[in-house]
C-alpha cells in the first residue's frame, strides 16, 4: 500500500506545478530585494548625493567644466535609476516618489513650463518647509534636472535663478532617493503588501508576485514606450518621445533595464531561475537565453540609434529583432510564473 502511495506521489510530483511550501519563495524574494532593489537604491542615493553636491559647486563657481561635471553626475544617477525603474512598489510609492523621480513621458511639456514659472518667481518659496510636499511631481526629479542641464531655455552657468533651481531640485531629489534607500534597508518587501483576511495569506509569495507582475509590465514599457513609440514602430515617428533624449541616454537606459532583468532572474539562493529550472528546465533555459539575447541585441544597436540620421524604415529594421526578443521574453516569463503558481493579474492586466 505504501509502495503504491509513493508511486502516486512521485507521479503527481512529476506532473504538477511546484507545490508551495513555507519559505519557498524566500530565496528569490530576499535576493531580488537585497541585490537588485536595496543595493540599487544605495547606488542611486549615492549618485543623487553626488549630483546635488556638484550642482552646489556649479552654482558657487559657474563654468563649462563644472556644468560638464554635473551633467556627467546626472548621467550616472539616471542610469542608476534604470536598475530600479521596473519596481513601483514599497517606499517609492509614498508621496508619488516613483513618478517624481522620473516624470516621463512628459508629452505636454509640463516640466519645462513649471520650471520656467519657478525660475521667474521668488526662489525663496522653495525654502519653505512644505514646498516639496506640495510641489508638482514634474519638477521634483530627473526629468526636471535633465531639462535644467540640457534644455536650451535653461542656462545654469549664466542664470543664478536657473542654477538655484537646479541646486534646490537636486537636493530634494537626493533626500528622496536616500529616504527610499533607508526604508528598504530597514524593512522588507513583505511589509508593503496588504493583508487579505481569511485567504491563507502568504505575504512572501504575494510580495514576490508583485515583483514579478511589475517586471512583466516593465517589459511592455521598455518595448512600447521606450523603443517602439519614439521610432514610430507602429505609427508616427517622434524621437523627442524617447526617454532622456536630451542627455542622449535613451539607448543606454534600455540596455541597463535589460541587464537588470537578468539580475532579477538570478538574484538569491535559490534564484527564480533555479526554481524555474527545477519546475521546467526547458522553459527556464529559454528565458535565460532570451534575456541574454535582449542584452546582446540592445548592445548591437548603433550608439546613435535615437539621434543619428536614419530613416524610419532603417530604425524599424534595426529595432525589430530586439522588439521580438523582448516580446518573447515577456510571454516566456509569464508562462514561467504561471506554471510556478503565481497569479499575475487576470483582471488587473486585462480588464475593460
Amino acid at each position, binding site marked *: 500500500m505504501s509502495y503504491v502511495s509513493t508511486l502516486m506521489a512521485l507521479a503527481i510530483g512529476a506532473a504538477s506545478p511546484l507545490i508551495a511550501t513555507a519559505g519557498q519563495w524566500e530565496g528569490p524574494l530576499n535576493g531580488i530585494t537585497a541585490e537588485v532593489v536595496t543595493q540599487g537604491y544605495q547606488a542611486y542615493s549615492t549618485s543623487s548625493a553626488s549630483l546635488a553636491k556638484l550642482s552646489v559647486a556649479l552654482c558657487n563657481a559657474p563654468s563649462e567644466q563644472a556644468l560638464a561635471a554635473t551633467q556627467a553626475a546626472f548621467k550616472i544617477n539616471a542610469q542608476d535609476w534604470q536598475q530600479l525603474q521596473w519596481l513601483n512598489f514599497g517606499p517609492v*510609492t509614498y508621496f*508619488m516618489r516613483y*513618478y517624481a523621480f522620473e*516624470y516621463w513621458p512628459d508629452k505636454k511639456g509640463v516640466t519645462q513650463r513649471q520650471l520656467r514659472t519657478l525660475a521667474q518667481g521668488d526662489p525663496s518659496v522653495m525654502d519653505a518647509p512644505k514646498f516639496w510636499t506640495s510641489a508638482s*511631481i514634474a519638477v521634483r526629479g530627473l526629468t526636471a534636472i535633465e531639462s535644467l542641464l540640457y534644455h536650451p531655455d535653461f542656462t545654469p552657468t549664466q542664470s543664478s535663478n536657473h542654477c538655484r533651481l537646479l541646486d534646490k531640485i537636486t537636493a530634494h531629489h537626493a533626500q528622496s532617493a536616500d529616504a527610499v534607500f533607508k526604508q528598504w534597508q530597514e524593512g522588507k518587501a513583505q511589509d508593503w503588501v*496588504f*493583508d*487579505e*483576511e*481569511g*485567504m*491563507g495569506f502568504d505575504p512572501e509569495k*504575494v510580495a514576490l*508576485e508583485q515583483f514579478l507582475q511589475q517586471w512583466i509590465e516593465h517589459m511592455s514599457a521598455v518595448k512600447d514606450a521606450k523603443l517602439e513609440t519614439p521610432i514610430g514602430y507602429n505609427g508616427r515617428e517622434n524621437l523627442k518621445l524617447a526617454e532622456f533624449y536630451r542627455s542622449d541616454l535613451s539607448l543606454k537606459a534600455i540596455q541597463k533595464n535589460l541587464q537588470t532583468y537578468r539580475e532579477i532572474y538570478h538574484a538569491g539562493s535559490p534564484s527564480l531561475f533555479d526554481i524555474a529550472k527545477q519546475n521546467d528546465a526547458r522553459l527556464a533555459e529559454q528565458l535565460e537565453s532570451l534575456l541574454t539575447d535582449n542584452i546582446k541585441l540592445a548592445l548591437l544597436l548603433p550608439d546613435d540609434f535615437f539621434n543619428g540620421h536614419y530613416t524610419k524604415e532603417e530604425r524599424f529594421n534595426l529595432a525589430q529583432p530586439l522588439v521580438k526578443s523582448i516580446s518573447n521574453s515577456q510571454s516566456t516569463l509569464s508562462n514561467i510564473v*504561471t506554471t510556478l503558481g503565481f*497569479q499575475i*493579474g*487576470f*483582471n*488587473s492586466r486585462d*480588464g*475593460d
Partner: protein
Amino acid sequence: MLSRRSFLMLSGTLITTPTWAALSQQEAGAALYASAYSLDKNTHFFALFDDEGSISWTAPLSQRAHAPVIHPRQSIVGIVGRRPGFFMDFFDVSSNQRIKRIEPSKDHHFYGHALFSADGTQLITQENYYPTGEGKIFIRDWPSGNILQSFSSNGIGPHESVFLNDQVLVIANGGLMTHPREDRNILNLDTMQSNVTYLSLKEGRILNQATHHEALHQLSIRHLDVNQKGTVALGFQYQGDMWDQVPLVALSRLDRPELDYLPMPEDIRVRFKQYCGSVCFDKSGDILAISTPRGGLVAFWHVETKTFLGVENCRDVCGLVSTSNAHEFLLTSGTGAQLKSNPVQNTSEMIKNHTNIQWDNHFRQINIENYA
C-alpha cells in the same frame, strides 16, 4: 434571420424553459450567482455558483466573456462577449443547453454588457457602430433577438447601462472610440469625452446628460449602478497619466446636471491606479462598493453622507454583487477567491477559494425569491 422552422423550434424550447423558482429545489431566499471564468488563456466557461461558492452548473465558452445577463423569469442566463464583442450566448440552465446566440448587426459590436427588461420580453444591448464610432442602444425582442427599436446612446462607447425605471435607461458612454480592426486602441484619446445619459426609452429623448469638465475629458465613465432612491453611482477609468490626481467615483441623478464626485483618502485613490472595475449598491441602497483589480481592493462609501468607509483587500478583485443581506457584498477575483464583505459590521468571510479558476470581470446574482 431565423427560418420559420428554427423559429418554431426555438420558441418551443424557450416556452418550456422552467422558471427560476421551479428550477430551484433550494429553500426560499436562496441565491445563485452567474459568472464567466477562465482556466487559462484558451479555456473559458460560464458558471452558476451558490451562496457557499460551490459551482452547480457550467458551460464551455468559445471565447473569454465579460458580463452575464439574467432573464428575470425563465431559467436562462446569457453572457456577453468582451469588447469588441460579437456574440451573446444564452443557456437554459435546466437542460444545460446553449439555446441561442445573438450576434450584432452588420458593422456593430457589443460592449460586454446587456440587460433584460423587467418583464423579460426585451433585451437591451449597447453597441458600437464602428464605421462612425456612434454609440447605439438597441431594444431587441426576446427570444428572437430581432431589433425592435434603436436609439443613439448620445455618446461614444456605451459600455454599460441600467434601468432607472421601466421608461428610463441610464447609459455610461465611456467616450473611447475604437474599431475592431485596431483591437482596443483608442482612436480619439485627445478629444474623447465621456458622459452619463438618461434616455427616455419611450421617445429616445435625452432627459439629462452629465459629463466632466474639459480638464477631465480623459476620464472614462465606464460602469454604473442605481439604487432605490434613483441615485446613480459611476466608476471611472482614467486614460491620462498615472500620476494625475483625478476623481474616480461619482454620483449622479436624473434631476442634477453636474456629477457629484465622491471623496476618498489620497493613499487609497493612488492604489486604484486610475481604474475602477465594478460598481454596486448594497441591498439597502445605502452603501456603495467599487472594485479595482489593479489596486487589489474594494472601497466602500455611505451614500447619503458621502462618507468613505474603508476597503477590503483582495488581489485581482473585480466581480462585485450585493447579497440578499443589507450592507453585504460578494466579491470574486482573478485568483479564484469568493469573499463576503460587510463594511458596516466590518466583517469579511472567504466562502471559497477556487485556486485553479480565474473569475472574470463581472458577475450577477439570481435571487430565486425575487423571481418566484
